[in-house]
């Protein structure tokens, strides 16, 4: 009994390969996260320009979402070992999850419709987007410690 417990090094080759697979997944997740952060910061700098392209920002956000789905796939398949299970069992989880596609689409569309109705008074007038201030300087640290001035 004690001989089994004191073993710390990988016992077999398959074992070592398995550990390697786990660390490989970790690095993939880390790199995907760093790419997402880089894209997030890219959006931040794009939005500093008052005439930024909405479509470009939307495309980058789409890429970020796809990368997140890839991360989710890695975590579920390799960390949670769902990838190693029987195919029919995977389907009992994957098929109901496809409901999310409708779920997300329907409710985001609903939200957009609310905004449209609110802006146009239920379709009774045309909506003109007001001019907004975009390139706002970041709050300097000193400002936070200042007492009320006005």
């Amino acid at each position, binding site marked *: 009994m004690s001989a089994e417990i004191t073993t710390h090094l990988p016992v077999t080759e398959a074992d070592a390969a398995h550990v390697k697979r786990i660390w490989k997944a*970790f690095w993939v997740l*880390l790199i995907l996260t760093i790419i997402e952060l880089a894209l997030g910061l890219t959006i931040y700098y794009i939005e500093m320009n008052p005439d930024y392209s909405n479509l470009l920002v939307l495309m980058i956000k789409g890429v970020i979402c796809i990368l997140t789905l890839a991360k989710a796939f890695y975590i579920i398949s390799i960390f949670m070992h769902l990838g190693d299970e029987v195919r029919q*069992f995977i389907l009992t989880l994957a098929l*109901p999850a496809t409901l999310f596609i409708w779920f997300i689409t329907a409710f985001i569309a609903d939200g957009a419709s609310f905004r449209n109705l609110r802006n146009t008074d239920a379709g009774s007038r045309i909506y003109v987007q007001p001019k907004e201030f975009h390139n706002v300087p*970041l709050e300097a640290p000193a*400002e936070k410690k200042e007492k009320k001035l006005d």
Partner: protein
Amino acid sequence: METAIAQTKTKMWAGGRSPFNVSYGKMMMWFFLMSDSFTFGAFLISYGSIRFSLNHWVDHNYVFNEFPFTEAHLPLAFVSLMTFILIFSSVTMVLAVHDGHKMNQKGVEKWLFLTILGGLAFLGCQAYEWTGLITGQHEVLVNGVIEHWGTTVSHNPWGPMVMHNGHLVATPGPVAFGGYFFGITGFHGFHVFTGVIVNLVMLIKTKRGDFAKRGHYEMIEKAGLYWHFVDLVWVFVFLCFYLI
């Protein structure tokens, strides 16, 4: 060909065995995680729906740019650290499960301990984030008067900027932000907290030799599934609140 398939089918569903080659406990944990993912999904999707229904939402690059022990303003930096901590604790959890397969009690103890530390570190970071938001003092122009607001479930100082006496100042933003942010991250943080408790119980049972006596470490696997789910939810919370 058909007879072979028919034979395998009857073998799988003929009774006396698990058709999916998976234990009852593990399967039920998966089904629970499915239900929990719909709960979190519902929260996040409702957040998306309300956010899309408004012309103006908060700019996350300005709300979340504090980093502890520094005065620097680094958008996304602190939350990246939190994500890294949780992913790392997920890896240590997988390694704990892996050592459980090999009946390596010492290995399981080591990796479980590191997972618990990661969970506690994440909770500490989340507490810091919440405190910073709630006790923050941000200039807001309310009815012509400058007030100083923190971000709470009833106050949102991150609204559209206007010119006032020659400089830009914020007006109150959509009040829904506080409820959604604190509600969803709080619900997630509660899951992390219960996950840490479960892992602590697993560590104690491992140290006592309960699993060695049982002959298998499947309980650690089930706890691992829950912990990975917590990490997975964080990936999506991070996406919705901080990235897009």
